């Protein structure tokens, strides 16, 4: 195992000093502080991704993660996708270890236990990402794991165990699958599935790959994605009986450009009552598939303003998330991009029109050098607006030979100040000062204390479980929305008004980078002690409202329940 800093004694000393600083800052009522508690919580699985020199693109992609309450006990559990460890043999690399998927059960006291073997999910495929959704409407959340090779659909039996039904269900698709998302494309009450696929490659090509590209005219690095053939995305329509049909062509979602698909976001971006799809493509224009209202789609990315950047250029899209960042009532989209390029914030203007406002909002100096992956809008300080967190890490370890780039990078926290992102990472606590080659990101309140924590994966490293301390000093509310079947109501939208401010949120599967955030909606409320009006638009369009909902609670609302 390579020493990447997290094992060193100096790190332990720094960690202790940082914890003291956290306490002092917290006591003084300053900015919320983040602390990495993964080791203390018992989360020690190393997520492998290839050999140390990273000869093939597969070894750069990393793995995703999930916050998901798989046993319905009210505590968020953790899923960590895993890859393989390779050696450095110059002729043909050998597999040193096939990492297994980890499922950490949250015992509710700050500790976690890896129960993957018991649960039947300890798969040793070279994994990439995960998303969650109850595809069979039995009230138990299921998991879809994307792999380099056949994907897995883990059906939750409801007794703490899962069975892989991917082949039987028709969604095993053996490719290099990346981001994925469950969503109800045709409003028939069950969850369909979109899977982004990246590049066509074989394991033999991975094991015999050579570094043939030159980065910055100085160092030899892995090739791709340009020069490699893109793999086509897939769309599966749920048949309602535990199986899916490959409806990619029928739904108009044929990935004829063979774009290098990575991040997937499913959201009703134009708020017209059906769910659209946004795919962050690496080095190709991003896709924006508009739902035509009948479960078929049209790609409007080219002229929507969200396919290219402000200069009309395709960027290397990796992760994606969406929220109303500027509070104007329209959904905005954030996409992470490569090093020496900026992350893109597409401001929504309604009706699926967007404008790249990254330069105008000052995102370029913040995000230009990092190579960024998982991203999420979230209200870390509960002041009733959407902040941004981005996790980063280079793909070429060889950049450590250069002066101005680094393989290991920090996460970045950007506070929303009147619709402008301001980086506050330096004062956000020790948990956000750690440097890794980060990839996946999930956001959730794992300790149920009313503020949002972070789960971050990193190449050849255990994950970071970054606890938020102090975010709950302001008011908040969390909502769990369930259909009558008990399924999490993915696709439901909520509008709240509290303290004179209106906020919107949507329950989604997938997004960020190959990861899954908690299936609860969290609203920071500032000083407001109650939500004056809460309006839920269920996925089929039915609207339900509640008035005067007290803050500071976890509220489960099942469709049809009376207050």
């Amino acid at each position: 195992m390579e020493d990447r800093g997290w094992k060193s004694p100096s790190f332990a000393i720094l960690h202790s000093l940082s914890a003291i600083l956290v306490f002092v800052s917290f006591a003084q009522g300053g900015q919320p502080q983040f602390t990495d508690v993964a080791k203390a919580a018992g989360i020690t699985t190393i997520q492998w991704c290839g050999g140390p020199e990273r000869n093939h693109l597969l070894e750069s992609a990393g793995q995703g993660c999930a916050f998901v309450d798989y046993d319905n006990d009210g505590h968020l559990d953790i899923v960590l996708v895993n890859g393989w460890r390779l050696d450095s043999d110059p002729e043909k690399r050998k597999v040193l270890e096939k990492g297994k998927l980890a499922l950490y059960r949250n015992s509710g006291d700050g500790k976690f236990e890896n129960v993957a073997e018991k649960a039947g999910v300890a798969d040793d495929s070279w994994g990439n990402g995960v998303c969650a959704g109850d595809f069979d409407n039995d009230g138990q959340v299921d998991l879809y794991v994307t792999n380099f090779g056949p994907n897995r659909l883990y059906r939750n039996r409801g007794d703490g165990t899962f069975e892989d039904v991917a082949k039987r269900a028709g969604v095993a698709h053996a490719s290099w699958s990346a981001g994925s998302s469950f969503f109800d494309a045709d409003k028939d009450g069950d969850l369909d599935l979109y899977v982004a696929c990246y590049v066509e490659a074989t394991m033999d090509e991975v094991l015999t790959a050579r570094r043939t590209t030159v980065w910055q005219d100085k160092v030899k690095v892995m090739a791709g994605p340009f020069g490699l053939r893109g793999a086509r995305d897939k769309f599966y329509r749920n048949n309602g009986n535990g199986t899916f049909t490959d409806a990619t062509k029928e739904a108009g979602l044929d990935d004829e450009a063979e774009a290098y698909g990575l991040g997937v976001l499913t959201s009703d971006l134009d708020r017209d009552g059906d769910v659209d799809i946004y795919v962050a493509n690496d080095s190709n224009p991003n896709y924006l598939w508009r739902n035509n209202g009948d479960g078929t789609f049209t790609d409007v990315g080219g002229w929507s303003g969200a396919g290219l950047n402000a200069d009309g250029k395709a960027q290397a899209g990796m992760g994606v998330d969406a929220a109303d960042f500027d509070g104007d009532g329209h959904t905005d989209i954030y996409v992470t991009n490569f090093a020496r390029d900026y992350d893109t914030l597409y401001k929504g203007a309604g009706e699926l029109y967007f404008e790249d406002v990254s330069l105008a909002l000052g995102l370029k100096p913040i995000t230009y050098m990092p190579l960024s992956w998982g991203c999420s809008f979230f209200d870390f300080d509960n002041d009733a607006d959407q902040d941004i967190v981005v996790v980063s890490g280079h793909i070429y370890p060889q950049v450590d030979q250069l002066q101005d780039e680094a393989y290991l990078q920090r996460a970045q926290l950007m506070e929303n100040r009147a619709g402008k992102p301001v980086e506050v990472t330096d004062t956000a606590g020790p948990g956000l000062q750690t440097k890794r080659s980060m990839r996946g990101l999930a956001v959730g309140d794992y300790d149920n204390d009313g503020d949002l924590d972070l789960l971050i994966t990193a190449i050849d490293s255990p994950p970071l479980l970054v606890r938020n301390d102090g975010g709950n000093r302001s008011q908040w509310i969390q909502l769990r929305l369930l259909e009558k079947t008990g399924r999490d109501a993915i696709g439901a939208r909520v509008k709240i008004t509290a303290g004179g401010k209106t906020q919107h949120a949507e329950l989604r599967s997938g997004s960020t980078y190959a990861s899954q955030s908690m299936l609860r909606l969290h609203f920071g409320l500032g000083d407001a002690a109650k939500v004056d009006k809460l309006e839920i638009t269920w996925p089929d369009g039915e609207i339900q409202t509640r008035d005067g909902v007290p803050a500071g609670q976890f509220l489960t609302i099942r469709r049809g329940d009376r207050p």
Partner: protein
Amino acid sequence: MKSLLSAMGVAVVLVAALAATPPAARDEQMKAAKENGAQTYEHLATAIIEIRKTEDGLVKGIVMHNAGAADASLARAARAEGGDKKQALERAADEITNAANEGDKPVQAVRQRLSKAGHTHHTDAETKEDYIWIDGKEKKKLVDLAQRISKMGDNASADDINKARGELREIMSGALKDE
């Protein structure tokens, strides 16, 4: 790998044949082989240059087709009403985007396949700026025009639509000019 082994096999046979030949005749044979090699490569170079010109011409044709389809959709939009108008405008926006990308999605997939084989004449992979005909600035103009057209909506006037047609023609005539 197979072609390398075949070439090596041929070379071994040739060398063996030469070794068996008397010295004076061997010199003549080597001189002829050298001249033949150069001539063959000359023919191949001509073919490669012609293929590049053919690719230029083909891509120009593809872009012209996209632009032509956009223009036809705009003409239709100028005459149409309501939902038909909006549909025609969106179709025009699609085709203009295709022109900006020097081809629609299947063409983009072909470009990626060529890149995989080491062919880069046609792509912006190296410069990140220009394709064969549409440079970075023209692409931006086309993408912006596409968005503006898509936003025109059901009530767009014939005048506004025809203005957009004029703009498209101006960009394309600059882009497709032989240099």
